[in-house]
């Protein structure tokens, strides 16, 4: 049943994306809208390198490094801004990255995309079937899950959460706020990069349309549904949003209508969650505001920074 394996592979890829996005937004409080673009940078880096003959494992590592470097660079101006201003700047960066993918045709072939990306292989073993690829994706997901859980539960993670809560107080306690924020962006972007690498070597074809606003909204919905500032929550959110639109496949509607219904479904869930369970299903209990608070921490963070 490669149909189920396919769903599981996507849960793994989106799980990695949602967990790493939650690191920057949920734990570090950086309203980062560049995540889908980091995903794309990872995908293009890995695809282009393997197409020139670099082995998969090395391309995979480069996907992490290149995306992480972009994450770090974007963090430099971004960590000086807050709230809606930061959201606008990071979104602007994402748009620039997508524009480069579309227009640097000599490198990326623009909107035509890159076909014929080799399937992932390690030490001569080719992850050719969907189930085989699922094993690889699951291993990467588990590693991501463990590393990011360790980070958020460490003293480093505690400082990150403190900065999210009150930057000025953190500075008064001697914390170099910029440094922590840059690390959070760097790590978050790096993991989005490896998700991109997996994606490229699974689908074997990529084009810029896979890394746009729609993708970003999907990732954001995952952490809102699953739980802000929760690692298991992000994974749960990814699983729910990957599985939920599946029944649409069996309605045999024209694909343009299915796409529209999908969008409506995601938006509907997002609005419902923000209204009724603003910190998500597994959102850190501690993040729940006092009983009488009207809007969620997440919304406040977005607007006020």
């Amino acid at each position, binding site marked *: 049943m490669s149909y189920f394996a396919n769903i599981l592979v996507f849960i793994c890829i989106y799980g990695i994306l949602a967990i790493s996005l939650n690191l920057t937004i949920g734990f570090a409080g950086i309203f980062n809208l560049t995540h889908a673009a980091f995903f794309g940078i990872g995908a293009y880096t890995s695809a282009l390198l393997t197409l020139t003959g670099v082995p998969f494992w090395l391309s995979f590592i480069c996907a992490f490094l290149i995306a992480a470097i972009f994450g770090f660079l974007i963090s430099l101006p971004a960590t000086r801004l807050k709230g809606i201003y930061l959201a606008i700047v990071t979104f602007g960066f994402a748009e620039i990255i997508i524009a480069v993918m579309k227009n640097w045709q000599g490198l990326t072939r623009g909107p035509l995309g890159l076909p014929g990306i080799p399937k992932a292989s390690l030490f001569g073993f080719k992850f050719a079937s969907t189930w085989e690829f699922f094993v690889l994706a699951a291993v990467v997901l588990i590693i991501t899950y463990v590393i990011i859980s360790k980070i958020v539960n*460490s003293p480093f993670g505690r400082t990150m959460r403190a900065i999210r809560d009150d930057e000025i107080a953190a500075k008064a306690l001697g*914390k170099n706020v910029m440094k922590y924020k840059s690390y959070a962006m760097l790590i978050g972007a790096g993991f989005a990069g490896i998700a991109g690498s997996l994606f490229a070597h699974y689908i074997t074809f990529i084009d810029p349309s896979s890394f746009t606003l729609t993708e970003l909204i999907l990732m954001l919905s995952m952490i809102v549904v699953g739980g802000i500032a929760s690692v298991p929550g992000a994974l749960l959110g990814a699983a729910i949003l990957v599985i939920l639109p599946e029944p649409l496949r069996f309605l045999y509607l024209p694909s343009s209508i299915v796409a529209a219904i999908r969008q409506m479904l995601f938006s509907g869930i997002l609005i419902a969650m923000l209204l009724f369970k603003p910190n998500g299903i597994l959102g850190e209990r501690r993040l729940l505001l006092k009983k009488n608070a009207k809007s969620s921490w997440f919304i406040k963070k977005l607007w006020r920074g």
Partner: protein
Amino acid sequence: MLKVVGLSKSFGGVKAVQNCKFEIERGSIVGLIGPNGAGKTTVFNLITGFLKPDRGNIIYRRKNITNMPPHKIAQLGIGRTFQIIRLFPQLTVLENMLLAIPSNDSLFTSALQFRVVAKEQKENIEKAMELLKFVGLDIKVNALAQNLSYGQQKLLEIARVLALDADLLLLDEPASGVNLTLLKKIAGLIKNMRKSGKTILLIEHNMDFVMKICDKVIAMDHGKEIAYGTPKQIQKNKLVLDAYLGG
């Protein structure tokens, strides 16, 4: 210990601090008083690096700290509290304390959770608990800071700045808005801080409180320093009386 020379800061047309100069001796408790808007909090923000002075210098232990970023100044041993309480609301009382205790929270050592980090963590928790007991918050260790009462939040902010292990503490209205019992308790805590070797500069509007615990008092009005002396001298100073009566 701390020396401020010719410090000035304006916000647009508002001269918040004008040519301020004073010196604070090691081991003393100095009060900074003045009517609302006199520029007291601005002086704190200048000393701790949250604002850059237009002119003047700040010397701490013979080191010029003017224009240093706030976290560096804190690392040099100047701790502060805020007029409007600034805790980490979504973190627990214990976590708030642990953040102040100097420790290794760099990404690689702490994320890999080496034994050293675990051991350091255990020692820090003990230290935090001790300080929480000292202010009477040990029963609230695992409560979220945002769920504490106003008075408890004030105490936690004081305990937290103590955990920083700074030598000079700047307390911005540590006893504002608390009842008489807590006021006395906070006065006791501050006296105890001095006993343990700290130097304290505090802003306070409650004159009884200032008179009781301060060795020296600096009075400000309209951004200018108008008087300096013992509490008794300040109490009788004509300029100070005029400033408070709106003369």
